[in-house]
């Protein structure tokens, strides 16, 4: 076991960091993501990807987080892609995956386990209900949608232009775009459904695990930005005739921020290590643990970063408030810290 990045990993990290630094905060371009190979980083070569691991995805995600990039990299290149991957023997999935990796198609995930329902009627399959908080959906040309069917979950691959699919767009507090999808008794034909009817639960769960780990990495990057920005501010800001970095309480608060960040980094390591484990329970626990820590640490680091900046931390102009908002959004994505803690409490093994 070793924790230092090897040469290739370092190159990957540095190229993402450079890309982000050049583009300024939040100005990433999707096609460039594709051109750099990052959309396919965690996908096997057989699917058109670059054969990297969850670790490579995490390296990319962390740097995107550090750049406060709000493009839906995790939603599209991890969650949606990982949901399609096990079903790539079906031509629509294979085509969508290939185009996703090339940057030609944005496939947005609408995978909440409740809200949408697929039922067999006299005139065929009908999709009704809704999926909410679909991040990446405003520019998507395709959606992977979870719908209850029978007693299970089915997975659908829908073209955005399909009749009966209504979109309601909005922004989240961190500026990222999301939408709600409403399905007005949409006519669905068989090949829009991927895999066995009602059998998509495990695929979606596994895809979600990968996405959570990537989100944790992204949050870690945001925390790092908040921490280093705050450190610089403390050293430079003067009050009462001294740099405020000389005030012990502020020094200790910064130390506590580092403690929180390192706890988040540590549980991310634990989750990355567990992703290749056979034991589904252990994997699920490690992923939930990472999400709990990420959410808690993120909120603490984000809030304290604002606190230590004083007034300017509250302005929209300055980046610290944006770090906090991004960390709040990342906490809520794929289940908040509180939700994952409840899950851990429920399946606590003696």
């Amino acid at each position: 076991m070793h924790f230092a990045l090897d040469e290739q990993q370092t190159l990957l990290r540095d190229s993402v960091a450079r890309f982000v630094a050049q583009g300024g905060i939040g100005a990433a371009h999707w096609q460039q993501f594709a051109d750099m190979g990052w959309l396919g980083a965690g996908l096997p070569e057989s699917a058109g990807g670059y054969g990297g691991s969850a670790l490579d995805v995490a390296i990319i995600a962390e740097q995107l987080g550090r750049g406060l990039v709000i493009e839906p990299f995790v939603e599209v290149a991890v969650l949606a892609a990982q949901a399609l991957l096990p079903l790539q023997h079906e031509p629509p999935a294979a085509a969508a995956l290939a185009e996703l990796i090339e940057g030609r198609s944005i496939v947005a995930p609408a995978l909440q386990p409740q809200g949408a329902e697929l039922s067999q009627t006299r005139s065929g399959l009908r999709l009704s209900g809704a999926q909410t908080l679909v991040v990446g959906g405003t520019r998507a040309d395709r959606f992977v949608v979870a719908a209850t069917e029978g007693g299970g979950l089915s997975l659908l691959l829908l073209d955005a232009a399909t009749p009966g699919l209504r979109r309601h767009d909005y922004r989240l507090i961190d500026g990222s775009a999301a939408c709600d999808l409403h399905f007005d008794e949409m006519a669905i034909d068989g090949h829009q459904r991927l895999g066995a009817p009602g059998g998509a639960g495990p695929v979606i769960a596994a895809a979600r695990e990968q996405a959570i780990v990537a989100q944790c990495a992204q949050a870690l990057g945001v925390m790092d930005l908040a921490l280093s920005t705050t450190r610089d501010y403390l050293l430079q800001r003067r009050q009462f005739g001294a740099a405020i970095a000389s005030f012990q309480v502020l020094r200790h608060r910064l130390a506590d921020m580092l403690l929180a960040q390192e706890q988040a980094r540590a549980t991310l390591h634990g989750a990355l290590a567990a992703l290749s484990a056979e034991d589904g329970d252990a994997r699920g626990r490690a992923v939930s643990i990472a999400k709990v820590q990420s959410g808690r640490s993120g909120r603490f680091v984000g809030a304290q970063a604002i606190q230590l900046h004083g007034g300017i931390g509250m302005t929209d102009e300055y980046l610290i408030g944006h770090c906090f908002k991004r960390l709040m959004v990342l906490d809520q994505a794929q289940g908040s810290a509180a939700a994952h803690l409840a899950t851990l409490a429920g399946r606590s093994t003696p």
Partner: protein
Amino acid sequence: MNFALDDDQRMLKDSVERLVARDGGFEQRRLHMADGWSRTLWARYAEIGLLALPYPSTHGGLNGTAVDTLLVFETLARALPLEPLLPTMVIGAAALREASEEQLARWVPPIAAGELTLAWAHGEAGSRYRLHDVSCRARREGAGWVLDGDKPLVVHGDSADRLLVSARVSGERCDRDGIALFMLDANALGVARRGVRLHDGRRAADIVLEGVYVPASDVIGEPGKALPLIERIAQHAIAALAAEAVGLMQALLDTTVDYLKTRQQFGGPIGRFQALQHRAAEMLIALEQARSMALYAALMLDEPDDAERAKALSAVKVQIGQSARFIGQQAIQLHGGIGVTDEYVVGHWFKRLTVMESEFGDTDHHLAEFSR
């Protein structure tokens, strides 16, 4: 609403403070621990009227209010009394609100004179603070009752003259109906007591009742309908504990601030380190929250709406628990090594607060009660 003390209350506070100053020393207490508690101190409490305070004046009491009790417990707290004040003064007075004239005449005078001490024997193994969880049984026999069951960890139960014992006259273990309250003679046949020591220096006993006969005249209130009284008793106890906790927390804060000012390290008093200053400030905030809640408790003891009163006292216990945990821990932390020694009083105040956390329901229990 007036938060200032009136003349009587000021006098009460002064007499308690004098007693503490003269006889309530830390080293004296250590000596008293050998016998459990000090009979001399008990006689002094009786002399200055503490034991009579909450009882009705028609029978030798002083008609004291909840605020009077609060004052006594807050002022005595830092002396860490080993004596059975809570059960004899507070629990007894609350219980005897439903006593008959004959019972009041029989018990109040000796209590006030310091000749009769009590202990509260209600909780049972596995009840985990639920007041209606009673398995101890009482069956009718002739004009009285026969009690069988276990009452573990009865604080002051090893030395008490009488035990306030709850037992079920009807119904199943967790039924709200069917509980009765008995003022049991602790020396009655069939009462076995095994003493234990608690971390805060007080004594307790695991009590086993085997075929213990209790005359009907020793039943308080109506048999089978005692739960509301038991709930009130617990609320009075919580209010007294809240006041005691405030006294302890004040002592911890005062001592900590003194230490910060006097302890020298790195060329000056450690109180000049900002992190420690802020910690002391946070302790003060926690103390003031607790103090407000202790006052609220005294106020809410008279609230006629049962549910409101119960919620209020649960909220009080939660705040006390949270403030006490923070202040206790920080006081030790800020004292460094000496905070962890047996020789120094800070650790003993901390231990008393720790023990108090699990008396009459811990923080989690009351949080759950409050949110019901």
